[in-house]
């Protein structure tokens, strides 16, 4: 099959071929590898289970193989399930026959064990068709409900019935059901999350862990083990200490859930369960006050009651953390998109101004050329007045600097970088924007009146983006006035401090004003009243101002024209 596929993809690129054959190779080799792993794990789990079996009952208090099989099924595609179940059979036979179980019982148990794993796997796959996520509260809930509670329950009826029919061991039917159920619930709770969280990205998580996180994990597990040993590896004469001791591991489980996520929580639970079970079966720990069966039940209830909320808590926290990260990423992306759009509209705006910008450069160039040629005239005529020559040279230098500033201002606006927030002076912004728009204003024969208040607060924002907003408003104001009859063409740009502490910049024109039908759609993207224009200027300007925590709006004047207002919160350093 791999051969066919590589032939079929001969025409595709080497890279594609590499990926495809890699996938095919993985699909071909993995079921065998997994079958082997399942067989080994099943065997090991069964041996552990037998070690945790209380005589005279035939049922272990910690029967791990079923849950291992379930975890393996959940990790593999449905098509290779048969292979895993088949691989578990020899491991089952080997482990059980060694322990002296009659062959009929061995086969019966294999039936109930694999039935449990299959019921759990089918149900979980039904409700979570995609890859299982232990950072999802819902997925963990589904795994616990079907894998840890329903599947053991259903299979336990079958199991107990088989035990009764074959007549192996002692015990009432319902007692057997209860024993096996609890044992398998506990096993599923510790095995399935542990195996699945480590099998999916566990190695990468260890490799990628920071030194601090690794240290934290090591410290946590040392603490947990210490507490565990202290509780379960000691003879407790008085049951009065029981309740206090019972809660001792909880802080560490919570620590694991909160700080180390589902993987850390499931590992902590596994460690605790192994310790508690080991303590119980060795007659130690707080649960040794009554019969072995009572012991077992106490241990199981205690561990189940502790594991379920810890696993769900870990999932819920992880989910929320990932949501927060996703939200932050979405916000970052939105910000990035806004910055890109702002840059694009800025470039478009500058393109619109390019004719006027040529004018802005031609003025100093004209002055430089004429000054230099005048100086040459003086030299040629032999009338060299050093004072006049110095004046001319000074003017040339000043005009050259002026041309340089035009270029510099332009380059600053073309630049596309991180949005940077700094303290801005509204008046300086206005002056810079007027300098940028000067060519356009003059080319359209528009006069400017600037009424700048000396009593302002600084604003926080990105200077380039705010200049873009003002430039856009200025260009709009010019354009509305250049269309109609020649009246007074004047733009008034004002800065003032509002009573609420915000800084307002307004741009007023003497054009025809905002048409009534356009007023409501003015800030919509791609809406324009101009014959040429993208209709993005005001829309992106408003989004820039809003992102700065401010407002942008427009209104018709009482007399002629319209005014657009930008208001940004003023920034007060220290106590106001």
């Amino acid at each position: 099959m791999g051969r066919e596929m590589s032939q079929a993809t001969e025409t595709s690129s080497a890279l594609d071929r590499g990926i495809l054959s890699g996938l095919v190779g993985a699909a071909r080799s993995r079921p065998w590898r997994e079958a082997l792993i399942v067989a080994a794990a099943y065997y090991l789990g069964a041996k552990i289970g037998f070690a945790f079996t209380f005589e005279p009952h035939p049922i272990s208090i910690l029967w791990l193989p079923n849950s291992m099989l379930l975890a393996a099924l959940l990790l593999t595609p449905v098509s290779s399930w048969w292979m895993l179940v088949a691989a578990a059979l020899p491991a089952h036979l080997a482990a059980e026959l060694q322990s002296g179980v009659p062959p009929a019982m061995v086969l019966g148990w294999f039936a109930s064990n694999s039935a449990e794993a299959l019921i759990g796997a089918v149900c979980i796959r039904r409700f979570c068709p995609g890859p299982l996520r232990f950072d999802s509260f819902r997925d963990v809930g589904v795994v616990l409900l079907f894998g840890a509670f329903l599947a053991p329950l259903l299979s336990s009826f079958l199991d107990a019935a088989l035990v009764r029919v074959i007549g192996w061991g002692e015990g009432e039917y319902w007692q057997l059901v209860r024993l096996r159920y609890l044992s398998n619930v506990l096993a599923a709770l510790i095995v399935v999350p542990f195996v699945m969280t480590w099998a999916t990205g566990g190695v990468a998580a260890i490799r990628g862990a920071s030194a601090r996180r690794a240290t934290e994990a090591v410290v946590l597990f040392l603490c947990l083990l210490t507490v565990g040993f202290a509780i379960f590896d000691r003879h407790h004469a008085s049951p009065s200490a029981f309740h206090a001791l019972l809660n001792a591991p909880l802080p560490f489980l919570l620590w694991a859930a909160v700080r180390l996520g589902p993987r850390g929580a499931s590992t902590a639970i596994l460690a605790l369960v192994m310790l508690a079970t080991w303590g119980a079966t060795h007659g130690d720990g707080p649960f040794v006050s009554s019969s072995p069966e009572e012991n077992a039940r106490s241990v199981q209830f205690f561990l189940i009651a502790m594991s379920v909320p810890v696993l769900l808590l870990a999932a819920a926290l992880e989910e929320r953390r990932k949501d927060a990260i996703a939200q932050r990423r979405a916000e970052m992306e939105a910000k990035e998109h806004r910055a890109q759009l702002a840059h694009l509209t800025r470039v478009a705006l500058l393109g619109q101004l390019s004719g006027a910008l040529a004018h802005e450069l031609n003025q100093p160039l004209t002055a430089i050329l004429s000054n230099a040629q005048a100086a040459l005239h003086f030299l040629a005529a032999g009338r060299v007045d050093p004072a006049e020559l110095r004046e001319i040279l000074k003017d040339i230098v000043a005009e050259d600097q002026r041309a340089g500033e035009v270029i510099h201002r332009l380059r600053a606006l073309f630049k596309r970088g991180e949005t940077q927030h700094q303290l801005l002076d509204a008046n300086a912004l206005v002056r810079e924007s007027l300098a940028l728009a000067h060519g356009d204003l003059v080319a359209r024969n528009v006069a400017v009146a600037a009424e700048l208040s000396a009593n302002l607060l600084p604003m926080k924002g990105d200077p380039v983006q705010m200049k873009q907003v003002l430039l856009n408003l200025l260009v709009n104001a010019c354009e509305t006035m250049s269309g109609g009859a020649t009246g007074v063409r004047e733009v008034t740009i004002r800065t003032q401090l509002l009573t609420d502490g915000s800084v307002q910049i307004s741009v007023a024109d003497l054009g025809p004003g905002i048409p009534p039908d356009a007023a409501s759609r003015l800030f919509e993207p791609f809406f324009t009243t101009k014959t040429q224009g993208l209709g993005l200027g005001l829309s992106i300007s408003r989004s820039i101002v809003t992102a700065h925590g401010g407002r942008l709006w427009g209104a018709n004047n009482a007399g002629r024209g319209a005014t657009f207002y930008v208001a940004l919160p003023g920034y007060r350093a220290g106590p106001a």
Partner: protein
Amino acid sequence: MSGAAGTVFVVDDDAGVRKALTRLLRASGHEVRAYASPREFLGAHDPAEPGCLVLDVALPQQSGLDFQIELAASGSERPVVFISGQGDIPTSVRAMKAGAVDFLTKPFDEGELLAAVQAAMDRDARAREVRAERRRVGDRLAKLTSREREVLEHVVAGRLNKHIASSLGTVEKTVKVHRGRIMRKMGATSLVELVRMADLGGVQPAPAQPHAP
């Protein structure tokens, strides 16, 4: 140096350009007066003073083109050389159609500017000569009697004395006497010169009349 008698009036809102142009034109021997706006220029303007206008197109409030039209409408015949920071074709065509001497795009070489200014000065000087001549002729024409004026109109129409006499109901001899007086009063030495003067003075040739029955 051209040394033309006349002043170059520079109108540009850009102080740097204004200063540099003033300097260059002065260095080339021109009398220069510079203004930041058309209003400022008009405030100090004496149409009788010879000279030309170097006018920026892009001005706040009023474009140079609009000002050119306003100036012409006010009766001033001051020749205009336009200078512009962005020379687009429609603007320059409009300027030239409205009678501009030249349309220079900044930054321009001094050669271009000086040639344009010279051409404008020459046009101004010529126009002034023509106006002076016309005034002179007008003064002389005013000295003619109405009968002499009538005879002149017929002469300009190219009629023979005989036909003029017949049209005016007089004799050929009288017409001859009138012609002599006209030549003297107008200071003309030849018929050709008289016709040119009459043309300059706006004398309309008498309409062709049918001969008296």
